[in-house]
Each structure stands twice: as structure tokens, then as C-alpha cells.
């Protein structure tokens, strides 16, 4: 039997996840020149993953990449299947019986833990929960954040930490015209947080902030940024790192920090303070978070391989809220190998396991690094591997999404891209009424109700389109 990819035996690929990794993989498959059918399976009724639920509401331009995803979804060889969880509603084995290949682009949804006692004390949260909450993610919309205290601590120094600091310190009126969730806006409007501390175990030259995002913190109305000039005195190995011309992002970050440390402090209503060379070693409080204990570090090692070693010097920081943002890990799916240490599906250039058929792209492939566009190059590379394996795949023709709906049965309604468009239109309508670009639906039940109602109100031909095959 000939390899799949022809008109009589189209290459059927199931993509698990509908964030950037999934959509860029779909785009690459659809551009391959072969006859392909891509079925994208998403556990929520709405697509776009971290573009919808991760990108900050005050960064609307970045979200314009959904226009590219919309174009991908226009293809008659693409089908979106929302509201279906792989590993629960359908097994990986079942997916392999309906598709020639399964490509996982399901991201890294869980936070790494600090591994300290009291990590779950009220007031101690993950950045994931907070970001998901203000972005209206159904899993996090009912989380409670007590913002009655003045001091918040963020552990970790990447772009997520910056997003959290900015949302906490930005004047709430500047957020009212964004697509931030209404429930978050209400809580942030009453927030008494006025001091945010960002804690990093290594130095300013190793912080992984993007220069542009870091600089933005200095441009917030009514907020000053503080960094100790002592922390900016770099050792010889750090200076060597900065001399590397490819390390220009760190050079720009250092310029930004130096600018802040020498600027005469303008007293402002809110304050963001950077702390370097500090590791949290204890979380303290009786019924809720009261303070954290930090240990001072020094760096040892070669350029670009320096690690933090404790000096034994400790200090305390009183705080009411803490968010940890020290990395992310994927969620295991039964039937797929999992590297628990790295929180990824172990793979060789995107190929999972030894026999062809399972693939990974995006954060579940390489871990949580890079930005939206990084996942495009990454997904394209995985698809190239998949296409190179074509002759080794089990070539028997597969039934694809139609077989999936039989397996799922009537109790698991699949949400199509046409259904999503109706949710999208409703969100845009609600947003316009509130003076926002979008008001997200934040409950799965509300999304599914809307889908059901709009299907009933449509003409018969459109109902057929929304629940039948998209081709």
C-alpha cells in the first residue's frame, strides 16, 4: 500500500491542542503539497491556547496573530474539534486508530513548585492561576486573590513575572479598555497592592526578560521601579557574558536596570522592586501568608553556565501575596511517554518514542521557552520530521474525525470552528457594549449553551455545516 498523502488515502493527522504550536503545525501540514486532513482537538470549546489565555490583555497587537490561525482554519482540509479532552474522552490509542499520526501541541499547563513547606498557604499562588484568572480561563475564573494587603512578591524573572507585576501595578483605568476578564477588573479596581517585589536567584545579566517587556515596566503611570545599584555591580564572568555580541538582549536589560538605579526616585503611588541573587528558602504565616525568607546567592561557573550558590546570609520580606513563576511543566497523557523531570514528552526532534506515529511541537516538545513565533519554527521542524517518516507510517486509510464523533457519542458535543465563530461574535458584541475589544465568556457551560442556542436558531443548512464534516 502506498504511503498516506494521496487523494485516495489522505494523510490524516490529529493535532492535540490549539495554541500557536498546534496552528503552526497545521499550517505546515496544509502547505506540504500532499493531500492531508488535519483534525485539531482542543479540550476547551475555544481555540488559541496561550494567545487567548496567556498573552496579557494590554498587549493586543500580539493577539493579531489569530488572523493567521483563522486563515489556517478556513482550509477545507482543516477541522477544529473543541470540547474534547484527549486521554479522558478519547484515548491516544483510539486517536491512532482514526489518524495516521498524532501531533501533541498541548503546551505546559502546570507550574513548577519551589518545593518549600507552606507553598499552598492562602496568599501563595502560581503565576499560571493569576494569568489564567485575569485572562478569563475557565479553569481559573473562580480563583480568589486577596488584594487587601499592600505587598506582593513574584518569584521568578521571566516575561510572565513581568506580566504579573504590570497587571498588579498598572492603573486600573488603563486596563478597562482591554479584553481583561470583567471579574478580574473588579478585583483589581479594589486592590490595595502598592509594592511588588520580583525575586531572582541569579543576577541582572541572567534575567530572561525580553528587553522590550522589561522597559515597559518603567513606562507605567504612577509607578516607580527600583533596583539596587549594588546588585548591578557585575563580576568578571557576567561581564564576559555581556561582551558576547549575541547576548544583546541582556546588554539592553542591563542598560534599563542602570537607568532605573541612577534615576532620582520620583515618589509614586506604586512601586516595583527588583531583587537579584536571592532564593526563597521558607514561606511563613499562621493562617495565611505573612512573609518569605530569602537566602543570598553568589554565582559560580563558566560564562552562560553560572549557577546560584547560597552564601547562607538570610533576610525576610513581609508580604501578603506571592506568585511563583519559575517555569512550567506539561501534563502527562495516558499512553504517551512523559519525562517527569523536564515536564515534557521525551522526543527526538519532535518524534516521540521509537516507532513513527506520535509527534510533539511547542512547549510540550522543548519546554517553556521562547515566544509565539518561536513555536512556528519549532512546529515546522516537527512537521518536516513527520513528513520524512511518511513511508514508515501505518498506511491503512483512516476514517478521521467522522470516526471520532462515533467514539465520542452524543454526550460529548464537539464544538466546530463555526461554533467558535459564534462564541467569538458574542464576545465581540459584549465587548463593544462594555467599551472593550472583547468580553470573554469564562465558563464552559456558557460557551456550550451559546453554541447550542445558535445552532438551533440557524438555518438547517448551517446546522449541517456546524456539526457535519467541514470539507
Amino acid at each position, binding site marked *: 500500500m502506498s504511503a498516506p498523502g494521496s487523494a485516495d488515502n489522505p494523510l490524516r493527522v490529529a493535532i492535540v491542542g490549539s495554541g500557536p504550536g498546534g496552528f503552526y503545525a497545521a499550517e505546515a501540514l496544509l502547505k506540504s503539497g500532499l493531500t492531508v486532513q488535519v483534525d485539531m482537538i482542543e479540550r476547551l470549546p475555544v481555540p488559541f491556547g496561550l494567545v487567548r489565555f496567556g498573552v496579557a490583555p494590554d498587549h493586543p497587537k500580539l493577539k493579531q*496573530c489569530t488572523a*493567521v490561525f483563522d486563515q489556517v482554519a478556513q482550509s477545507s482540509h482543516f477541522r477544529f474539534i473543541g470540547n474534547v479532552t484527549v486521554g479522558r474522552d478519547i484515548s491516544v490509542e483510539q486517536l491512532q486508530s482514526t489518524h495516521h499520526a498524532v501531533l501533541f501541541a498541548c503546551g505546559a499547563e502546570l507550574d513548577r513548585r519551589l518545593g518549600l513547606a507552606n507553598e499552598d498557604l492562602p496568599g501563595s499562588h502560581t503565576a499560571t492561576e493569576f494569568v489564567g484568572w485575569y485572562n478569563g480561563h475557565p479553569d481559573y475564573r473562580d480563583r480568589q486573590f486577596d488584594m487587601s494587603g499592600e505587598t506582593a512578591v513574584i518569584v521568578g524573572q521571566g516575561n510572565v513575572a513581568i506580566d504579573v507585576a504590570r497587571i498588579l501595578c498598572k492603573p486600573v483605568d488603563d486596563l478597562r479598555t482591554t479584553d481583561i476578564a470583567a471579574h478580574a477588573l473588579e478585583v483589581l479596581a479594589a486592590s490595595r497592592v502598592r509594592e511588588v517585589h520580583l525575586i531572582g536567584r541569579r543576577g541582572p545579566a541572567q534575567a530572561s526578560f525580553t528587553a522590550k517587556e522589561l522597559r515597559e515596566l518603567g513606562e507605567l503611570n504612577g509607578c516607580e521601579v527600583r533596583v539596587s545599584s549594588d546588585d548591578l555591580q557585575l563580576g568578571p564572568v557576567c561581564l564576559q557574558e555581556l561582551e558576547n*555580541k549575541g547576548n544583546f*538582549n541582556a546588554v539592553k536589560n542591563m542598560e534599563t536596570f542602570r537607568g532605573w538605579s541612577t534615576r532620582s526616585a520620583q515618589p509614586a503611588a506604586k512601586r516595583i522592586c527588583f531583587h537579584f541573587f536571592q532564593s526563597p528558602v521558607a514561606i511563613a504565616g499562621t493562617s495565611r501568608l505573612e512573609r518569605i525568607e530569602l537566602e543570598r546567592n553568589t554565582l559560580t561557573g563558566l560564562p552562560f553556565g553560572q549557577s546560584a550558590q547560597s552564601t547562607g546570609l538570610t533576610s525576610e520580606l513581609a508580604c501578603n501575596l506571592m506568585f511563583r513563576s519559575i517555569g512550567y511543566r506539561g501534563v502527562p497523557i495516558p499512553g504517551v511517554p512523559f519525562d517527569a523531570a523536564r515536564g515534557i514528552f521525551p522526543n527526538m526532534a519532535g518524534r516521540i518514542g521509537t516507532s513513527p506515529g506520535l509527534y510533539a511541537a511547542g512547549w510540550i516538545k522543548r519546554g517553556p521557552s521562547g515566544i509565539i*513565533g*518561536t513555536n*512556528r519554527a519549532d512546529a*515546522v521542524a516537527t512537521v518536516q520530521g513527520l513528513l520524512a517518516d511518511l513511508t514508515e507510517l501505518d498506511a491503512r486509510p483512516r476514517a478521521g474525525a467522522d470516526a471520532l464523533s462515533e467514539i465520542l457519542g452524543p454526550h460529548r458535543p464537539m464544538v466546530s470552528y463555526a461554533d467558535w465563530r459564534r462564541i467569538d461574535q458574542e464576545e465581540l458584541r459584549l465587548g463593544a457594549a462594555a467599551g472593550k475589544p472583547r468580553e470573554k465568556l469564562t465558563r464552559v457551560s456558557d460557551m456550550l449553551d451559546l453554541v447550542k442556542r445558535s445552532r438551533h436558531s440557524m438555518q438547517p443548512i448551517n446546522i449541517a455545516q456546524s456539526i457535519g464534516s467541514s470539507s
Partner: protein
Amino acid sequence: MPHIVTDKCQRCRFTDCVTTCPVACFHGDATMLYIDNVQCVDCGACVQACPVHAIYEESDLPADKIEWLQINAQRAPGLPVISEKQVPLPTAEARKRELGYE
């Protein structure tokens, strides 16, 4: 603020940047690439991808490269989109060394 490809791309044209662009806003002629600043979403992924740091955000643009803002805006829309990695120019490695990037 838009991102801009400067003349450091000339004689290189590595095209690593285009593979990371989430909205395929790179256009190119035989000498270099240009960014369509209407399409660009300002994510900055390309800045990190370029082996010779030929791409800058507008506010980071060195004083002697300001003209490239205008040139990108004018040239990009009329040229074909480049969204897949291409073979760099034969002079690319030598040019990279000349620019001081190892």
C-alpha cells in the same frame, strides 16, 4: 513600535528570522529582507533569531540606521513574502565575522 531590518542583513540574508515570524510579515529582494510594519505584531522573535542582530525595534534603532524605518515601510509591501528559510548569500559567513558575530 514596528521592527526594522537594517543594512546588516545585506550580504548575509540568513533568513532565520522568517521562520519565527508569527504573521509572515517579511518580504525580500535579492539583497535583503524587509518588515511590513502594518502586519508586524511587534513580538520581537525575529530580533533574537537573527545571527547578526540586523533587526531592531524602532526605539532601539541606532542613530545611523534611522533611514531603514522608511525603507522597510516603502519596500516591503511591493516584494514577495518570505516565510520559509532560504539558503544564505554566499558572502554570509564572511559578513557575519566582519560584523563581529561568532
